């Protein structure tokens, strides 16, 4: 491998991005694009790139090295993770990131040390960008690629918007259906129907409605909590809480509180 200025710039940029990712992780920059891009490069590309560059000053083309950098980075991440797991610190995210960065930097230094053994030419050839095409063709090509890119992106974004299954959930809060001393029971009604809904809620004990709330209006994604009447200590049947869609008489959702035995 002979160092060229272009390569040195590219490697420098990679190291800079990896360092930004490392700093972003250690300083906990949340939702920072610098951390996301730098972090992704640090985890998925640079360790493998540096490893292959250090081990193969020649024998791998630049294209091969770039292609193998992702799986090689997986290898480095797995080995670092497995090693860190055996330390008293456990799988500490900061430690993993710091080691990935150290690995990248040290391997890159090895790569450069090995490259310097090869004679570096003083003159550096920079290939001039020359397209054997007319300006019109270039413009049309760029427009075509841009238009198809925008259309494909818009199409994929639209397809990524999932339409979830609509449902209404009725649940006993705290996943306990039995009354504890001093803590009244409550139920929650969740509207996930994707549209505003009206419900009626009824508490039945022994086949008799002991409480009823009508016209509970919920927008999509909203919920309603209802505190239940305190059951008598000698109650052996408990109570059913039934949700109806407004205007309907068929129970829509139903849960039970109090002693378990049901009719």
């Amino acid at each position: 491998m002979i160092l060229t200025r272009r390569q040195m710039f590219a490697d420098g940029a990679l190291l800079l991005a990896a360092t930004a990712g490392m700093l972003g992780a250690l300083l906990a920059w949340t939702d920072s694009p610098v951390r996301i891009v730098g972090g992704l490069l640090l985890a998925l590309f640079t360790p493998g790139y540096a490893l292959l560059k250090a081990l193969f000053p020649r024998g791998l083309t630049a294209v091969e090295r770039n292609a193998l950098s992702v799986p090689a980075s997986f290898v480095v991440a797995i080995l670092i993770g497995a090693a860190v797991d055996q330390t008293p610190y456990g799988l500490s995210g900061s430690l993993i990131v710091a080691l990935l960065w150290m690995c990248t930097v040290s391997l890159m230094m090895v790569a450069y040390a090995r490259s310097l053994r090869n004679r570096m030419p003083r003159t550096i050839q920079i290939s001039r960008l020359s397209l054997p095409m007319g300006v019109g063709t270039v413009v049309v090509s760029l427009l075509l690629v841009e238009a198809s890119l925008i259309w494909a992106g818009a199409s994929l974004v639209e397809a990524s918007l999932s339409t979830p299954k609509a449902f209404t959930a009725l649940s006993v809060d705290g996943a306990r259906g039995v009354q504890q001393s001093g803590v009244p029971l409550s139920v929650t009604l969740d509207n996930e129907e994707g549209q505003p809904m009206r419900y009626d809620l009824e508490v039945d004990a022994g086949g008799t409605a002991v409480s009823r709330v009508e016209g509970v209006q919920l927008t999509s994604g909203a919920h309603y909590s209802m505190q239940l009447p305190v059951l008598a200590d000698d109650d052996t049947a408990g109570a059913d809480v039934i949700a109806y869609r407004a205007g309907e008489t068929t129970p829509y959702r139903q849960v039970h509180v109090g002693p378990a035995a049901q009719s």
Partner: protein
Amino acid sequence: VASSVATTQEIAAPAPTSQAVAVSSPVESTEAALRRGIIQRIAGSVVLLIGFGLLGQAYTSPAGGPAAYALYWSGLGACFVGTVVIGISRGARPHHHMAALAALGLGMYLPSYLRNPAYPLFQDELFHIQTLQLMLDYGTTHVPITNFPIAGAYPGLELVGLAVMSASGLSLDVVVRIIPIAIHMAIPLVAYFALTSTGLRSAHAFFGALVYMANWGYYWFHSTFSYESLGALLFLMIVGFGVRLTQPNRRAWVATTLVALLTGVAIVITHHISGAITIGVLLTFAAAFKLKVSGRRSPLLDLALFCLVVWIGWLVYQAGTTILYLGGNFVDRITNLLALFQGNSNSTRSLFWNSASPLPEQFVAYLYPVIALMLISLGLYQQGVPVLRSWRSSRTLDISAARLALAVVGPLLWLATAPGVLTRTADVVYRSWSFLFLGVALFATLGVRPWLIDRSRWSTLRTATVYGVVGLLLGGAVILSGNQAGRFRTTEVHSSAGPEDFTEDMVSAARWLGTDAGRFHFVIGDATSAVGFAVWGMQKTNQGVWPIYYTTDPQLAQTYANDMRAEYITVDMRDARYLPRYGFYFDSFEFLDLRRAVSLGQLLPLEDLAKFDQMPALRRIYDNGDIVVYQNSGLTEVGQ
């Protein structure tokens, strides 16, 4: 040695450059050829992007309708055509080939993501998502996995996930999508690298990588967050470097061996079967080297033995889960065989019978093995004739050690295992093809190579035919390995107890229980609920619970529930409306229960589900229509 050196010289043959192309076509000037190549690549890129867009449109059209089908196949077809146009364009260089292959990898990933953008659906990846979440929470690989402990015993994928999450700060939901994209795009590139290492020219390796992408596992299975996907990627990498160790260039052996060693350790930590297959392949390479270049040592045998020691060491280190899992897996295979012999298993298989695919798709699926067989036969013939001739004349093998090894762990083993797709072990056979297809791709390429280098007046037609055949092969693979949750998002599910039943109401119920009751309660449910409540609710779930469900007697069911110490029981009402996706509602062992009527094509009776409201110690605490959760107070009230 002489033949090996000859092969190396063949390997060292330079890739065709734009100048070489210009010389071959005297009428066309170099500049014109260059211009034509650039325009072809731009056209290919546009077609690829249009393919992406069409795939997006397929998932916004009414699911299952003719428009969705047309857009889906047009999208995949455009992605393939765009890739081929770039790959065979005038003066295409390795970076063009690799960019096109990576783009096709991305295109073939999209349907898996667009099927359910909100969260993954396949249970194999859900297990790893739970494991990753627990490792994140506990800061160790030794975590209390609640349903499928083997995922934590081989934590390579999760360690990569942790590294990406820690470095980028992205959420788990995003990371479990990014890593499969990286794997799916990298697999064809590493296959390409491995194929060029065997001596194929760049353009031919491009063809071979397309054939490799037609293995059963690539299209859908390797687009999931699964340790087997990462295992397949690392396998390709180690084989690529292993091939280089069969060549007599000792200068590169140290570095190559070091990378292979590191990759070998990583693959052992990542996936049990991938590790075992890697060792087998390395041993085959070592044997081929010994046979071909007797009297010289290669690090291949040492490498294979090192990997074997690490593999056994890891198995012993994780013995608590690995032995149980591998033993259970063996029992499961025996059970499947028993079910077959008893005629008591009706799970659908997409190839050859019970296929739900449209007729044209079935036709292409039938063509898949025929095309693969045809390509393999061509390759074996092209390579086999000179080998036989040289063996007869001088008792030497006129084939490189790498190709000899890949003939065994490629076409020959493929031919041996292919009939297995007709048996109950079909899934094992299909999954093994991810490892065998590198050799298949190599020999398929060698078989059609005369057509690829043809420069006669019919060359365009021949090239189109050859790539058309690979397109059909890829189409067959897409049909055979389709998403187990169904290809499109539908408004209503078609089967129960399968991946398509991981709907929002189930996820919501599982999350509610995890939030309101806390983690690690013992929850029982059907096969889907067991996974869903484990992953999204972090509950302990198990298999073998069917006796509670296959009865109408509330007292008997209560006794079973208490005996099993079930704290919560979930009921999926869809079990009474749809037949199960895999032929069982709860457990593959349930065919042993005579009360089960699934084998007769009957639904789970509604009375079996309605009885939960009459069970003496159950309390109905959650209801969202299809998913109902009961709390079992019998454990404390009965005093058990």
